[in-house]
């Protein structure tokens, strides 16, 4: 699910072919004298990855049986939904927007308001939050994605500052204390059961988010985004609509952030302005950059591990700032693609090593067999 994976897949469904639609349907090419019929199979990886995350995550949370660790993992899952969107937005498309905490707030406050003030069910609230965030992201994205790189970064840096203050002064949003009593996604007969069930809904949403992000990254659109990220002029020259793609990425990243916020509100039962603050944005950035800004798996694990470290009561949680800062610097210097990139590279090297060893062993075998026959032939 990293960049090379998409690049390899690009040999099958590159941007040119994606112009015909990357929907996975059969397409017909008539290049050359004899028409070549090519059937494009549906890519199994996004669906498989999404299912794996949902099933494995559910099993892990069921094993934790509503413990404090289970609650921490569920909170980490909420952040992971946001960081999956950030992988697409910041890592893959290099869209330097810092508005994720704001959309997390939209999701969290949306759930809180709809469920506690208007008696919506969790599902209705979630769907409403998604709809609201799509509209908000489209409106905001239509404006902010017009701005070039640094201006976009600067404008979106300001967003958490004033939205946070707006929330702290608004009595409708509960001021500093926020909104309490947000119901969980799926209420069980006991507290433990409720935690487990809410966790399972959260990992299903995470699986869905990861599947969607992987689908985009492995499609022709993903390659267009990669081309844009490398060089916008290059992207434009091959017919990529920069404005449209920027807006789409912004909307998708923002909606996933809102879903993450909704999960966070459901898991914790309370929404405070902290979710909107620049500190929340900093934490999200760390989760993405330390774990691997181009890897969905890395971003998921990074979110859960960093959430665990920040909430644990050990030496690590006290000195989390130093640890995160040093880790970030080391990663930026040594492996800019994060821990996931380093693992990918190491595994790649190992696989390459195994492949080379196998090749040389086979070559030796073939040579020895061939040499034997030549030898016997010469003898004859």
């Amino acid at each position, binding site marked *: 699910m990293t960049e090379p994976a998409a690049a390899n897949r690009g040999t099958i469904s590159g941007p040119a072919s994606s112009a015909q639609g990357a929907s996975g349907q059969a397409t017909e090419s008539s290049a050359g004298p004899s028409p070549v019929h090519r059937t494009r199979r549906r890519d199994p990886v996004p669906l498989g990855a999404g299912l794996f995350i949902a099933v494995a995550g559910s099993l892990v949370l069921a094993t934790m049986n509503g413990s404090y660790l289970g609650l921490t993992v569920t909170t980490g899952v909420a952040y992971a939904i946001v960081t999956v969107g950030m992988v697409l937005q910041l890592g893959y498309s290099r869209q330097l927007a810092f508005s994720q905490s704001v959309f997390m707030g939209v999701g969290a406050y949306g759930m809180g308001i709809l469920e506690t003030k208007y008696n919506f069910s969790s599902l209705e609230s979630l769907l409403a939050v998604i709809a609201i965030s799509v509209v908000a992201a489209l409106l905001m994205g239509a404006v902010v994605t017009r701005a070039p790189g640094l201006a976009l970064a600067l404008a979106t840096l300001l967003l958490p500052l004033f939205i946070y203050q707006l929330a702290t002064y608004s009595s409708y949003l509960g001021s500093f204390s926020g909104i309490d009593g947000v119901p969980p996604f799926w209420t069980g007969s006991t507290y433990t059961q409720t935690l487990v069930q809410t966790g399972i809904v959260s990992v299903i949403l995470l699986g869905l988010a990861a599947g969607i992000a992987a689908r985009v990254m492995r499609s022709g659109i993903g390659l267009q985004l990669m081309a844009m990220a490398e060089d916008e002029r290059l992207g434009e020259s091959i017919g990529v609509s920069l404005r449209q793609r920027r807006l789409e990425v912004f909307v998708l990243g923002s909606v996933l952030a809102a879903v993450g916020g909704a999960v966070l509100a459901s898991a914790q039962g309370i929404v405070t302005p902290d979710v909107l603050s620049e500190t929340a944005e900093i934490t999200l950035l760390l989760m993405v950059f330390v774990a691997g800004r181009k890897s969905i798996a890395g971003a998921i694990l990074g979110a859960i591990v960093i959430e665990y470290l920040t909430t644990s009561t050990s030496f690590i949680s006290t000195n989390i*700032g130093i640890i995160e800062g*040093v880790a970030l610097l080391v990663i930026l210097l040594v492996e800019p693609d994060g821990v996931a990139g380093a693992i990918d590279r190491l595994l790649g090297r190992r696989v390459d090593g195994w492949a080379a060893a196998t090749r040389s062993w086979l070559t030796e075998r073939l040579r020895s067999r061939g040499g034997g026959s030549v030898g016997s032939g010469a003898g004859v």
Partner: protein
Amino acid sequence: MSEFLNLLAAGLTSGAIYGIFGACLAVWFRVCNVLNLAVGDFAMFGAIGTAWLVQTAGLPFIVGIVVVLVGVGLAAWLFDWVVLHPAFDRGAGAHGIVSVFFYTFGLSLVLEGVARAMFGTDVYGAPDIWSGPALHVLDFHVQRAGVLVIGLAIVSGLLLWAYLRFTVSGRAASACGESVLGSRIVGIDSAKFRRRIFIMTAVLAALFGIVESPITGYTYLSGPTISLIGVVAAGFASFRRPGRAVTAGLLIGVAEAMLGGYVSTSYNDVLLYAILFAVIIFRPEVLGLGAEPA
């Protein structure tokens, strides 16, 4: 009239704070196209370090200031040697837009963590450099620390502007930001300028933190907010013009105070940031943000 003048004084004081950090950011960005997001943390270290040395360790005030400024300078040099030198001179690590923000963001986290471990979570304020009651000129009331803050901001902004505009060294520093390769071809040591100006702005920020801390007080978490406001002020100076950053900072501070005084004390920051946001989005060319940094 009295209310207006007092709001103006308060606005100029807070604006000077924004402006000086904006100037520190802008002058270094001009040299190496990197935003120093740790500038607020250097100020925090200056303020808290001096307060701790004087109040807890019992050092004389002047000695405390010198020790802290030397310490901050050494920390900046060490960061340049360990991180920036390999990244920018040897081609290691991440480049592009990531390098604009994230190296110094990492430093900011480390400084915050170290400050928490060393000084805890209390609020600190260094002793007043110029102690005494507030100054009264007609209806204009301003704290002595505020006068120092405004004066230091204006003097620093002017000196940085003059350095970049009128000295050969300043022009060489600017050339590094325009093109590292080009500057190296003509014999300019870009690494030297990057290092010197980074250390100089870190020490300046720490000094400013010491001067300013009697007004606001600092905790180990004060740095990022200061840096963010500095980024905004620097943004309104195209990230490259320290003199203009001071002016922008002063104007932002005055606008904030006036909005607080005449519109809403609760929503003054909200309104201010919304206005700044609108300017950045709809008129980026005014800020010189129409193009990517060289």
